[in-house]
């Protein structure tokens, strides 16, 4: 909607252009006021902002003291306070290398990206989980927004490469490979993600040799990763199908092998086309990380839900939901705006 930069005259046109429009506008404005005024009163005007305990919240509005008191938990779960610099550092490293890859000159981008892909994931796990000189912290203690981000990133580290391979497999001329890719994609796309998370948490320990345990969190990440890979594959397929056939034929004519043609000619173009679709799948992944709640892993929504059971803070349902919901909305909205800007950039 381009209304944001419209002139006042056209605003008048927009809101009161004709008698019908005027009536509808006024009725709707009254409706909005009727709904929004109590909400704003609750959230801002009557709300309690300062204090320490439940008893400080005497007004009829929201008790943001609760969110303030619980802020650390909403962000890190039960991660030990004195070790919280570790996930922070990991996050900063991920963000910095992301920025470096985006800002780097074109010829360095690929090698930088590959280096980051090899070094960062194990480094991140080491920083957060500990061991090898750092205090080991069990995944049971991880939680909150940190865990939401962790699961999203690591599940997509499985999902994006696997999705690209599956999409290539689905386009392959080799019948058996195509069949395997199609079956894999359609299976994971056909079943509910909540069932996949149950499945991963029940089956992964069962199919491993006796004595090898799979961490609870790792099971959820693997399950989500496989499921999202199938959706990613469909996103990448869109890009592959958008490429003219001549691209691969020309590459083959120049003597490039299948993998060289794919790596140097096909994927760079196809991935650029499907980047908005991949981002949309990533948004879906961020939203679906909430499902780890069913195997009692407490991500942001899970921590908010769990905090409702605290006897010291009875009746804080709305505050917990509004805070966590607003955070999810901000993250997903920012990502979707980015995806949209990619799309318009490509459209030009």
């Amino acid at each position, binding site marked *: *909607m381009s209304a944001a930069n419209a002139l006042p005259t056209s605003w008048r046109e927009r809101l009161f252009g004709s008698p*019908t429009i005027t009536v509808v506008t006024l009725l709707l404005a009254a409706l909005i006021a009727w709904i929004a005024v109590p909400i704003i009163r609750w959230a801002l005007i009557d709300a309690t902002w300062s204090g320490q305990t439940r008893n400080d919240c005497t007004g009829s509005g929201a008790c943001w003291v609760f969110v303030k008191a619980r802020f650390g938990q909403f962000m890190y779960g039960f991660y030990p306070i004195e070790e919280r610099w570790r996930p922070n550092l990991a996050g900063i490293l991920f963000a910095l290398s992301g920025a470096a890859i985006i800002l780097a000159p074109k010829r360095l981008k690929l090698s930088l990206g590959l280096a980051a892909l090899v070094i960062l994931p194990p480094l991140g796990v080491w920083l957060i989980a500990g061991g090898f000189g750092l205090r080991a912290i069990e995944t049971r203690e991880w939680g909150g927004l940190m865990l939401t981000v962790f699961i999203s990133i690591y599940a997509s580290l499985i999902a994006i490469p696997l999705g690209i391979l599956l999409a290539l497999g689905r386009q392959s001329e080799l*019948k058996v490979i195509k069949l395997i890719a199609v079956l894999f994609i359609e299976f994971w796309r056909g079943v509910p993600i909540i069932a996949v998370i149950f499945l991963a948490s029940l089956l992964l320990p069962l199919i491993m040799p006796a004595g090898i345990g799979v961490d609870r969190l790792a099971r959820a990440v693997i399950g989500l990763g496989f499921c999202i890979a199938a959706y990613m594959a469909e996103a990448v397929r869109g890009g592959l199908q958008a490429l003219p056939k001549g691209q691969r034929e020309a590459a083959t*004519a120049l003597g490039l092998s299948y993998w060289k043609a794919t790596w140097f000619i096909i994927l760079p173009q196809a991935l650029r086309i499907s980047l908005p679709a991949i981002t949309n799948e990533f948004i879906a992944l961020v939203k*679906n990380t*909430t499902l780890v709640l069913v195997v009692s892993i407490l991500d942001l*929504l899970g921590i908010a839900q769990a905090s409702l059971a605290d006897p010291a803070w009875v009746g804080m349902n709305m505050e917990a*939901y509004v805070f966590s919901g607003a955070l999810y909305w901000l993250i997903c*909205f920012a990502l979707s705006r980015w995806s949209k800007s990619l799309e318009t950039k490509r459209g030009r």
Partner: protein
Amino acid sequence: MDSGSPLRSGRNDGWPSAFPARSSIVAKAFAFINDKRVRDVFYQAALLIGLVALLVYFIRNASQNMVQAGIASGFDFLWRTSGIEVPFVLTNYTQSDNILALFWAGVANTMLVTVIALVLSTALGFLIGIARLSSIWLVQAIAGAYVEFVRNIPLLFFVLFWYFGVIAALPAPRESLSVFGVAFLNNRGLTIPLPDAGANFKYAFIAIAISCLLHWLFLRWAKRRKEQTGKDAPVLRVGLVLLLLVPVLALAWATLATRWDIPVLRGFNYRGGFVVIPEFVALLAALVTYTAGFIAEIVRGGIQSVPNGQIEASSALGLRPGQTLRLVTIPQALRVMTPPMTNQYLNVLKNSSFGAAIAYPDVVSLFMGSALNNTGQAIEIIAMTLAVYLVIGLAVSAFMNWYNARIALVTR
């Protein structure tokens, strides 16, 4: 492997070889391993063997682990008594029935919430999608804000919010919110009246089916007559009578002629009627509000995809705005909307499993949750649960593909 294309053909016959013939056997061996067809077969066989080996390895581990843990295998457990109490059943399942009956009770509950959510979210989605194209700015803005709000928040958030935030905050039965004095909404769910006997409704539905059939026959007759003689039939008036008046009258008669068991407040709770559990209400509300945001975008995209020239051309041909909408815009918009709508409908089916998070007794929470806890037979139970979704998904896809092919543009 289309050997017709020179670029993909197998042997590079006639090209200078990188390996000049030292001996004919070596040359033949090189030619053999450089043959694309041989390599293709080799790669595919290697992948297949690798996957099968991995599968065999996993199955061996699983069977060893199951023997160690003392878990039985096979489907015998389905005929054991379940002993699981289900708070909301559509089938005549009781605690003393076997586990297979529990499975079907779960499937029925999944289907119930899916079908009702489909209908309601389609209606709400169409409304919002059309509102986004309204000529009134504020209507457009509100619809746009709704879509942006709903699409960027996890569905599980809505499920928990409706369940713990809204339904739990509703008043106790004594202070229920009354819907026209016959249905009552409170924190124990929605109590609705129940007909004492369903016979009248059966007759009403038969009458509606007959009138739909009559309408279809009438349309065929009217179309043939129009093609032969060019005469118009009163399609709209007959359609209104057969498709609107008859059903409304039939349902009204059935409603009035049936004795209703209207819930009455006795002590602390309602007696009589049928209690729709709060889990169902919360899950349905979440599914409808969430899915409507996605359907609205599909509807908007579909309508916007019809070129303006089509509408101008049809009004130049003398079609009235209603006719333009019915005969030109909607058929073309539907063609664009069908594939993404199919996806959304399948998403609703899959998303109905979110009920497991608030213990709505659907197939995932009853079978994959309760029954699995009781029997421990993970593999069989997971396979059966996933099969439900895969079978329904395949059936819906097949139907939608058929429908899509039927309405597809016929090009020469």
